[in-house]
């Protein structure tokens, strides 16, 4: 897997990370090394093997549709850096 600067930039953007020039170079170097190593996976024969998403073989864990009290709004907002009129405040979200 060839890691390019463009790939690093697009992945960083998807992850909402701003990388400065040094961090970009470090990310390029680290990802290249790690992916070189991870590429060993491609040699593994996994034909017919089902992907495993969960460690436990559990199924159908459900709850009844019974309401329970919610939190007080002030507790919901307790850790918010900025709030107004019971709401979280964020920069203007564009359409």
């Amino acid at each position, binding site marked *: 897997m060839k890691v390019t600067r463009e790939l690093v930039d697009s992945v960083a953007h998807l992850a909402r990370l701003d990388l400065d020039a040094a961090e970009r170079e470090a990310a390029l170097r680290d990802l290249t090394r790690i992916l070189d190593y991870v590429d060993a996976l491609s040699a593994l024969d996994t034909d017919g093997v089902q992907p495993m998403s*969960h460690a436990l073989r559990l199924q159908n864990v459900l709850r009844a*549709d019974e*309401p329970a009290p*919610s939190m*007080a709004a002030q507790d*919901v907002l307790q850790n918010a850096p900025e709030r107004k*009129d019971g709401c*979280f405040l964020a920069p203007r979200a*564009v359409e």
Partner: protein
Amino acid sequence: MTAYEMVVGLEVHVELATRTKLFCACSAAFGGAPNTHCCPVCSGMPGALPVLNRRVVDLAIATGLALGCRITRHTQFDRKNYFYPDLPKAYQISQLYMPICRGGSVQIDVGGARKDVRIHEIHMEEDAGKLVHDPWTDRTMADYNRCGVPLLEIVSEPDMRSPEEVVAYLEKLRATLQYLGVSDCKMQEGSLRADVNLSVRPVGSEALGTRTEMKNLNSFKAIARAVAGEFRRQVELLQDGRAVRQETRRWDDNKDTSFAMRSKEDAQDYRYFPEPDLPPLVIDEAWIERVRASLPELAEAKIARFQRDMGLSERDARALTAEKPLCDLFEQTAACCARPKDAANWVMGEVRAALKARGLAPDALTLAPEALARIVLLTAQGSLARDGAREALQAAMDASPDAPLDVDAFARAHGLLLARDDGACERAVREALQAFPAEVARCRAGEEKLVGFLVGQAMKRMPGRGDPRRVSELLREALRAPDA
């Protein structure tokens, strides 16, 4: 000039009528002060975990069964990752790889032609929060009350070819969901939302054109207008030799036009992957049968029953079932008064007209079926005249649902009851004849049109209470008699 046709598919989101949210026990009820229906789970606090609401799965299966879908036996949830302030976890728990239902269809009827609009898939997902622009700070305020409210997304195949078909599909789908009790489908509260995917192509062509997605459609009327408008826009582009761009557009119903939403600077990559916090769902035959056994009667079955047991025409039966609130009113009224045909006429006629006059949607109806049944019965018996019955209906619609109108008391108090006793009528007729001897003579001489005048004079003498048919009968008898 080339003739074009539209190719339309819909993505319909419905909020489910559960008591609690999809993954936590917070109330799913509409409204509430900001961030008062929230807990660590739905507000995305670190360390909180989702637990699936069984009722959501039951309702999804019920919807699938009603629309003839295949129920996916091994299903699971996936995370859809994107950053936006209405999504506190920065991922939406949804279903990509194994939606709970696939296939199925909705049968529509436009201008007498039946057509099946195929369903591509139905999946379960959580709703996002509400963002409001704060003009004072020019910032966005986020309220997470709607976060985690359960949704079904019902994705159709691109099978619709006209605004009428689109509206017919939505009406039929809404009625079905309402009969199932899956959702109240109130567009004004956002519990039913539709996104329109539309492309155009030359008539006869099999290839699909470039499609646009349209959002912000707040009523069926707006959807019909938006579909027609977007069709025109795309056809004009193509006729000018320009291309349709694949984009998301926002419909502005006031301006009767759509605008391209500011295109995101990059293509979205939602990086879906199986939700590790939720074990998979295995839906066996027994579960499906349990849901099937609990399904209420759906529209097609009702249409058949209304014709078979109540003697309604197919046309009336279809019209009645198109909107569940009206259909419920009809069934309950018919059960109270045992006059299904009259009840049907009242619901489809006077009640619908009254709703329209008030600018109300059928789901805002609070008319008590007992009151309507009494009006139907009194009218049929001849105790209420049309005008009086209308007046009673208005009063019954004004009454609060907790204190329905006592129709008999109202009619008595307002003098609406028709006098059935012949004594009063005979007295009035006698007085009229005595007051207008010349006219009586001309009548007897054969001036038929004066009969109406005399009936009117008799009616005047018993204002509001006379049964015109009875008065007319008595008057004619009196005119035939040799000496009145």
